């Protein structure tokens, strides 16, 4: 086998290896994408938990609408929400602003406030942002 032929074979091997490695790399990316759906779905459930807690505080008259605003006007961070079934640690930041009924921010006291939950998780050792969820709450106490 001449030197030229050997170089051609070597080039073919390198080209073929590159194709195979790229193909596997793409497949692993697809798996990671599919698995990420688990974490995004769970993040939605976590935001729902926060919204339910907020609503219950109001309807049960444990905390007033204004007190809830005071509690969350400066973002409150909750660390280390761990699920036994998921190998991920979630943390979230809850913040509130006065808004109109559509969620547009108002710089004055209002009968509506927009609660925002920013969620992130440590997935496969990397910190990942899992979404920001908003919900507008109205003052349901008698007399507004």
């Amino acid at each position, binding site marked *: 086998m001449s030197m030229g032929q050997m170089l051609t074979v070597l080039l073919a091997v390198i080209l073929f290896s590159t194709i195979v490695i790229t193909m596997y790399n793409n497949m692993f990316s697809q798996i990671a994408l599919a698995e990420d*759906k688990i974490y995004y779905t769970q993040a939605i459930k976590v935001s729902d938990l926060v919204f339910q807690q907020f609503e219950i505080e109001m309807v*049960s008259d444990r905390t007033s609408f204004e007190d809830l605003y005071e509690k969350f006007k400066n973002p409150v961070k909750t660390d280390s929400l761990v699920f036994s079934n998921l190998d991920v640690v979630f943390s979230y930041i809850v913040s509130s602003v006065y808004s109109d009924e559509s969620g547009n921010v108002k710089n004055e006291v209002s009968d509506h406030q927009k609660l925002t939950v920013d969620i992130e998780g440590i997935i496969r050792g990397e910190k990942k942002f899992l979404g920001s969820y908003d919900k507008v709450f109205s003052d349901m106490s008698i007399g507004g």
Partner: protein
Amino acid sequence: MIVFLDIIGAVIAGTMVIITIISSIFNVQQMNYNIQTLLALNTTANQISEFLDLSYLESVGRNLKNTEDVIKSVSGNRFVYFSRAEYSDINPVEYTAETKTDANGNVFISISTKNTPTSVSVEVFNSSPFFIEHTNIFTFFDIDGNITTNINDVRYCQVDLVFVERGWDKKDNLYIKYPITFWRFFKNIYLNQLNT
């Protein structure tokens, strides 16, 4: 002789390439199948958990009077509660949400509804091939967020579901899992308390 060695080398190299290609095709098919299974499980898990949450757990204590019992019993695998249809004065309906095990040892969710001692209907989420991993799916909390099993203290529950479906690998023992956890505050209990 040199030609002979060239042929042997070409055969070895060619065989390796073909084996790599065939192996890659197998792996692509396997991964594709498992990803499809995971995505299908995602849809199933979301539909079932939302149905369980919004069609059943959200109605705990609905339209009951302050003097009527809301929760009959709680445990990790069984939750019995009462609810009444909107604008209705008939007897409260007793709901039993629980996990059961079928003949193959697979866990599934069952919800039975009892209007009267003779009127019972059962809804079962046992759509093979998926099943639930654990029987203990319910955890109950009191008003301060502490775990409780006292029916008078229960204010909300956490439901941990792990949906499992058989995947595909060379040893045929791969299981694809889709965990989902959700919470349901029993708003009607809070409102009932407010009216006492």
